[in-house]
Every structure is written in C-alpha cells, then in structure tokens.
C-alpha cells in the first residue's frame, strides 16, 4: 500500500514563504486563496533571550477526514494513497466541508463568478502526480531549505519514514481523531538538538 504523508522540519524552515508563492503560481490560484500558509507567532521571549519558529501548513490529508463524509454530492473524496481531493465538476460550493474541516484548509474563491464556484484545497499536487507518479508537490520542490519532505510512509526506506522514526514529531490537533498525515519536527534551537 501507499500512504502519502508530508514531514515538515521546523528546524530548517526560515519562513521565506516560497512554498506559498510556488503553490499559488503553479496551481494558478486566484489571489484570495492560499493552500499552504506559513504561520508564525512572531518573536517569543524577552529580548535578547528570544526565539522564533515558523509553522508551514497545508491540508492535513487526514486518515479519517471530516470533510469527506459530509459532502452531499460526493465531490469530496479520498484516494487509496491517502490524498484527499475534490472533484470540481461535482462540487456545488455548499461549504459543508469548509465547516467540517477543523484546520480551515478548504477555501472558496470570491473572485470567480457566482455560478462557477467550487471549493478548493491542497491535493498534494494530485494533477502533477497523475501525470508523473514520481513527481513531488510544488511546495516540496521549491523549498530551498528542504524543510518539506513528501513521501510514502509505508515504504520503510523512504525519507519520510526515516525522519518520522528518527526524530521527535508532532501533529496538529491529534486529539480530534481525524488522523492528520502532516508530521512536524519541532525546532529546539541551534545545534543543541
């Protein structure tokens, strides 16, 4: 089986937001949609003993996505490899899934005509991977720092398997039970780690 996950290494991320721009450019997104915002709380602590890190996000491609069963038309789906995506021509933009997603990763563009609306979200660049199965999502490719790593967690030799098994990781809002498939490696500061 294939189980696609992404590992995001906060030790490496320097908050340049190239992934955000790359995703927008290559997926040709309208200006009011961002699939993968890079979040930060800013500088924490008391000067000069301060720290700062960045939290790059995207759709969590949950194991038990809340956004799929709630869809009245069946447009919102999940592939066997774990990719959660939307079949746009079946979507009527009722926003049931937008309400269901606990991560707020589903969006609707208000720059499109009212009758041509649909919900959009990150698909791990499904279109691209269908064309070339070995392809990586654009946000992974473009990252200079290699802070985003994409791969098959069921393959014990993949880089994501090694990273998840070799470092302490966390996932966002795990207690909701949706089984998010984005793993974060926290930044503990300098080479101390």
């Amino acid at each position, binding site marked *: 089986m294939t189980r696609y996950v992404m590992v995001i290494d906060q030790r490496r991320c*320097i*908050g340049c937001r190239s992934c*955000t721009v790359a995703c927008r450019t290559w997926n040709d997104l309208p*200006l009011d949609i961002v699939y993968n915002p890079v979040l930060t709380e800013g*500088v924490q602590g008391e*000067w000069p003993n301060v720290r700062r890190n960045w939290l790059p996000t995207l759709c969590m491609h949950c194991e038990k996505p809340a956004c799929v069963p709630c869809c009245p038309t069946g447009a919102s789906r999940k592939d066997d490899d774990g990719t959660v995506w939307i079949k746009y021509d079946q979507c009527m933009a009722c926003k049931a899934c937008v309400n269901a997603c606990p991560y707020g990763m589903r969006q609707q563009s208000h720059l499109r005509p009212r009758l041509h609306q649909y919900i959009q979200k990150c698909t791990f660049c499904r279109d691209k991977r269908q064309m*070339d199965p070995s392809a990586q999502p654009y946000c992974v490719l*473009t990252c*200079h720092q290699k802070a985003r790593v994409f791969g098959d967690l069921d393959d014990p030799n993949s880089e994501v398997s090694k990273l998840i098994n070799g470092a302490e990781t966390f996932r966002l809002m795990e207690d909701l039970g949706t089984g998010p498939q984005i793993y974060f490696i926290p930044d503990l500061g*300098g080479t101390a780690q």
Partner: protein
Amino acid sequence: MAEIDIHAPGVEMVKSLCYFCHANCGVLAYVKDGDVIKIEGDPDYSNQGGLCCRGTSALLHLNHPARVNHVLKRVGEKGEGKWEQIPYDQAIQEVADKLNQIKAESGAEAVASAGGTTRTDDWARRRFLNQFGTPNGFHNALLCWIPTFMAETCVSGWSPFETDLGAARCLILWGMNPGASTLPGMHGYTDLQMNGMKIIVVDPRYSETASKADLWLPLRPGSDAALALAMLHVILYEGLGNGEFIGQWCSGFEELMGHMVDYSPEWAAPITWLEPEQIRTAARMYATNTPGCIQWGCTWDQIGRASTTGSHAIALLRAVTGNLDVPGGDGMPGPAINFVTDEEMELNELLPEEQKAKQISRFKLTSWPGYSIISQTARRQWGKTLPTEWFCEAHGPSVFKAILTGDPYQVRALICNATNPVNSYGDAKMTLEALKKVEFLVTVEYWMTPTALFSDYVFPAAGALERPTIVTHYGATDSLMGGSRAIQPKYDRHTDMTFWRKLGLACGQDPANWPWETEEEAYYHIMEPLGLPISNYDEFVSNVRMYYPPLHQKKFEAHGGFWTPSGKVELNSTIMQELGFPGMPTYIGTIENPIDTPELLDEYPMVLTTGGGFMPYHHSEHFQMQAIRYLYPDPYFSIHPDAAEKYHISQGDWCWIETRRGRIKMRADVQQEVDPRVIFCPRGWWFPERDGSADLDNPFGCLESNVNTLTSVDAEHCDPMGGSWANRGLLCKVYRVHDADNEFTAKDAQFSMPGSSNVPGITVMPSDQPLAREPIPFEKPQPTREVPEGFEWCWQNDALYQKGTEFRLDESGWLIDPKDQSYVDAHTGWVYVAAEEVLLDKETGKKYTMERVEIPYLAGVRGYPGMEQAPFEVPEHLRWNVEAGYAMLPDRQLVYDPNSGWMLDPDTGAYHDAYYGYKYDAATNTLLDENTGKRFTMDYQPVVE
C-alpha cells in the same frame, strides 16, 4: 488550471538561470512555440530544485502587463507621463546624436551612467564608456562589497570571499541574513550546522538567520568596527592567533600589536552594547575553532564613515588566525587565468589618462588612484587584475551632486541601466532632484519607475528568461556558471549588451571593438581559452554548465607568498599608507551615535538601521507583482514592545520615522525582534500602483516610505577610504501618524548635510567639504639601486618590474610571468620553453633558438639549419642537409622526424617510411611506392593483390 504537461510533443527544456538576485539559481524553462509555458527549479544545480518567491514568479514577471515593452520617447514635460512609442533603432540613433553633441560641447565626462546589480553584463557598459571616453560609470558598488574587497586586497592580495564551508568548524555570518537574501546559501549553512559546524551571527536584529544561530551578537547598529577591533584585540593579546602562519607569511605583526593595545573588549562594550564577555566568547570561538570562515555581509559597507575600518579589521581577524586560503577557511580565488576575465572585456586601455583624472570621486580606494595601485600589484602577482566596473567607479551621490551644483563640473547626461536611484541611493530627495534636473536622462528598465518617469527615453529591457546568463561574480573569481536563453526577447525588449553595442555603433565607435552580435557569441569568446569540447555557448550550458578550476587551496605556498606588493600578508598595509590612509584599522564612529554625538539624543533617542534584505523583494524590485506583494503589502518597521509602549504605538500603526534629514511613513511591527533602543526599517519602498505623475514631489510615493530619505551622503559622512555612505547606525525618533499630520509633503524630505531640516538644500559645494579624516602624508622611498630603463622599482619587496607587462625581473636576467611563473626573454617578450630549450612567441606561435634565431618547422618537424652535425642519430642511408638542417633522402624532399622515426612530406604532412620513402597508407596499413604504384607490407614484403 489544468496541469501543464512538460512531456508533451514540441516542448523543449532549456537550462536557464534566475536573474532576480545574486544567488542565480538554476531554472528549467519549458518552451513551446517560442514561449515559456512553465518553469521549475533545476534539481541538478546548486539550488537543488529550490526557488524562492521571486524565482517562482519569473513567468509573471515575463508577461506582466505593467512591463515596458517598447521604447518610450518623452513628448510632454518631464514627469508628465506622456510618451510616444518609437522604433528601437531610431531611438538609439537619437540618443547617440545627443550624447555626441554633449561630448563635443562639454567633454565626454559630462555623460555619466548609473548601473544596477545582477541584471546586466557590466563589461559591455564599461566597453561603451571607455570608448566614449567618460570615467563616470557607477553602481551602488560602494554599499556592496567593493570597499571591503579593496581593503582585503590591500591586506592579503585578493578578497578571501570563497568560503570553504565543508571543512570549516566555525562560521561567522556578520551583518548578513541569508535566510532572507540568498536562500541556496542558507540551505548549505543549515546542512553543515546539523553536522556540527558552529554559526555565529552578528546582527542587531533577531533575523531569520539569527533564529538558527549557535551564538548571536545583537550589537548596536553601526558598531561593527568596534566589535571587530575588540575581537582582534582578544585574539592578539590572549595569544589565540596562528603563530606559525603569522611568523611565516605575515609582516607588520609587532606594529599591529602596538596599534591594537587600546581596543579592549571593555573599550568596545559601551560602543557595541555587548558585554565584554560576549566579545571574548565570540573571539575565542572563532580563533580556537579553526579552520573557520567569516562570510562577507553587506553591512560592512553600509556603515558610512566606519565601513572600511570595520572590514579592514575583519580582514586582519582572518589573517592572524591563519584562515586565509586554507582548507576550511576563506579561499582567495584570484582572477581567472584560464578564461577571459571581465576586465579583459572592458577595453580599459582606450580610456585616456586625462579622462581617468576627471572621475568624480574623492574616495581613492575605490576609484582610479587606488585601483591603479591595486591593479598594478594584481598584474604583478596574479598576471591579471580586477575589472574597473564595480572596483573603480565614480561616487554615485557625488555625480548627483555634480548635476545639481556643477561642482566639479556639470554632468549633463545620465544613462540609468537596471537601476532606480531614487530608491537605492542615499539621500533620496537629492537624487530625485538630480534626476529631475539632469539635461538628458535615458533609462533602460523593466518597469515604469520613478527614475524612468523623468527620462527622455525609456528603453525596454529583456528579463532573465529572454537572455543567456553568465555568472562570473563581477570578474573577481576563477570559476564561471552559465544558463541559456529560453526565448528570444518579446516585443521590442533588448538585452543590455545589445543596448550598449547598438548605442556604441550609433555613436561612431569602431565596429571591430564590438565583434559580438549576441551574448552567446561574447560568452563563447570568454570561455574559449578553457579548451572545453564545445563549439558554442549553449553547448557549454547543456554539457558543462559550471566551470571550476581544479580546487587549489594554499596557493600562496605554490606561489611563494601572498599577492601583496611585499609578498606577505601586510598587517600594516603599504598600499593603504601609499594612499594616505592608516595602514592599520583606526577606530572611527558612525556619524550619529550615542557616544560621539550625545547632544542629538534628546531630539533623536532611537538608533536607526536600514537596508536589510527581506522576502519577497529584492532591492526596490517586485512591488508591482500582486501575487507576491500580498505577502508583504505595506512597509513595516520593527520596534520593541517597550519602546512602542513608551511612544503609544500599537501593532500596525502608521508612524513617522524622522532623522535630521527628513521623515517617512511606515507601519509598526511591534516585536521582540530588536533592542528597545533600535528601529529597523526595510529598504527600497515605493508604490508602483499609484499614478506617478500625480505628485512630482513624491512620484509613485518614492520618498514617502523610502528609508533613503533618512540616510546621508554628505562627504564628511562617507567612508573616507571607500566612500560608502551612512545607511546604518543613524539616530532617529518615531511617533504615530495623527489625522492632522498624515500627508507626506515635499518638506518632509530634505537634502542631507550640509543644510538642515530648516534650511534645505546644498549650502556648501562638495569640493569645499573636508573628508572625515585628514590624509596621512606618505613619501614613497627612493630606489636603493639603479633602475634600468623600461622598468619600475617596487619599494615593498625591492624588485624590478617591466613597465607595461608588469613582469618581474629575476636575478638571472629573465622576466618572470606571474600567471604560470614562466621565464620570458626581457628583450623580445618570448617565453622560454624548457622542454624544447627554445623561445616561443605566444602571439605568432613562432619558435626561436636561445640565440633568438627563428627555427624553421616543416610539417611540424624542427630544422637545425647551419648545424654541421645532426643533434640526433641519423639513419644510415639518410643524408644530413647542413643548409636546411634536416636529415633527408638523397633524392626526395622528405624530412626525417627523429621523434616518430618517420619521414614527413612538408607539403602534405603525409608519412613515409625512413628507408625507401614509401608513403604510408593508414586505411590498408600498407606502404605505397608512389613511383611504381606497388604496395608493400610494413616489413617490405610485396602485397599480392
């Protein structure tokens, strides 16, 4: 929004390079039907497939509706924004005629040119300017690397800028934030840090890079020179230097010890706001974790008065720790010996001496006086030298002042290529006035910038995907990288080389000096001497892409010394002394600081630092592109929460930031990112979305949020050696924008000193102004021995150098060529070839005997005419022809080659056997008797047909 299929028929992949910053990442461009349909990062290039916000936006940049696509000729008043589109070649001719007219009336020096960074082939511009006859080309070079480079070259003979991080144990990132400026570099640092390398970051702001550092020194902005001096003091007086290296390779150590005695960490602490113990820790970490690197950062060149002092001290830090050109240290590449350097493309020999003297710059280190000495030393030691672009330029702000004041003479025309000086040069108000006033302004641009708005002609420029790109690091290194042109320029866009070439030809310059029609031809000329198996530039890109000479560290051992006049690392620089500067770094403070100018603190209590690079912009670029502008839509300055509370400022408030020279508006980012006494402002802001012509006092809002409204270019505020102006460590105050006081008006921006916020304008002529430091008198020692004609004596190492070639006269009477240490005949310039015991004339390829008699060559076989006896063993049936100097058959004109044992036909070069003279037929491996037509095997048995 369907995915673009890059494997579809008709799609071609071109290896291109990004041109939006100095990192020049590899880009794969997918081209179909002459248009780029998609780009991706090149996974096989140093960026490993990575592209930042700017790089990924290349396609938006290529097709952006706001791009200038045709030549615009001004038809209304200056700045009115009324244009007529005219054909490119017609515009070139009109500009050329005007330039020629100005040259005839006021001299070539009345034409100046401002350049931009990393978009251009600068050698082409200098090639034009040199032929035109003006010395007044300039860039923002003095804020970026050049003063540092020159100081380092004075100390050790070249800038040690190529860090060898793989073997380094410690890295200082000093005033550099690769996390926001050069992302491929940051990637390497992070990898190495995870493998144990220590990173020290020196930055007053908690930058992206500082947030990953092992040791971070948040010093007072502008106090870098004090920190460097104190670190040097610690290393010297705690005995942490590399004694072996100092003893063997350095000179002036005793003087340096004496000079540094007062610069203790306790002295530096109040200046830098650091604890003495922090300074000691950093110095010890660097000096004991050798080999280590200090990565150059722009800050060193932007402190104003103290710039070169700081970088000079840092150069000494490397020297006393022995980190120069060693594995794991800072490598000194030297000029490219193996291919044509930028300097060799510039035609500097065409600029007359009297024109050089007219260069508008009072800062000797970075203009012709300093460049001449440094360049002469480089020719003597390396055999080649630095380009004059960047390293020998006019002082930009002084040129703008000359436009306004006519002092030292009136500059009448300005050609701006890839630059928007209002936003990138200090004292934006003065720059703007100069651009308005200059008689004839020509701009080569992507966009309608404030500078372009006042132009008489705006030429459209071709962008990264529309041109091939070559990376030679300003001609200061021995490696090169290349990228191909993805598509031909769209619309009427042209590359800058084409612009200068067309303009040069239209001005009447010799077409023989402009032999290359395209960049590809010129670049191929540059790399032809490498002897790579390529027949054009695009083959280089697809097959080779990057050329690095065989890695050579510790070159100083092979060379027998460093590349300074004395051959040592000069801890007390003789070139600096010759130029009237202190030979060792002597502290000087920034123009405004709490220690030297406490009287300003009441009015301006905060320390201002400006000019850091920040994502997603580069310099003053990319503000037009909505798809990245949304990441950072408004200008934000950083302020500490305590200071914000004191001044009643909350997150996002629009505030005024004011110095003695004016005030600008920015929004507050209240964070623990800077010291409570510090304000950090980003650079370059302007608002291309506004109507430029609506407010000519502030076109496109180019002064309103532009930190250069706050900086100073006054001569006394500039670095007396390099000339860089004051961008960092200024004093300011900050207060909220109120409803009654929220409009930016002309009086909010003033000229920098002299003049004041009450009495604006230049009240003192630049030539009346003193420099920040009096020149130190220096008398060059007289020769201690007789100097033969045609030679010059070098006082530093007591050697003689031939004028013109700069070859060293050896005790043996031979000249030594520094490039390959070969011996050259002092009378003829012919090179001695030891293997053959002959002299070689490199220009004609002819060879001569040691008696300087030309040696005949027939079919590549050397003859010995007049020699009674053959110098080799002659086969018994051959006759020695004394007159011709060859062993020959009695009846045939074949010459015997002692190396191969064959006879050769001088006319055809065909091989014949040395017994009967039968011709060798390689196809059948037989011998052919040409008289009878019979064939023989190699052992003379007849071949039976």
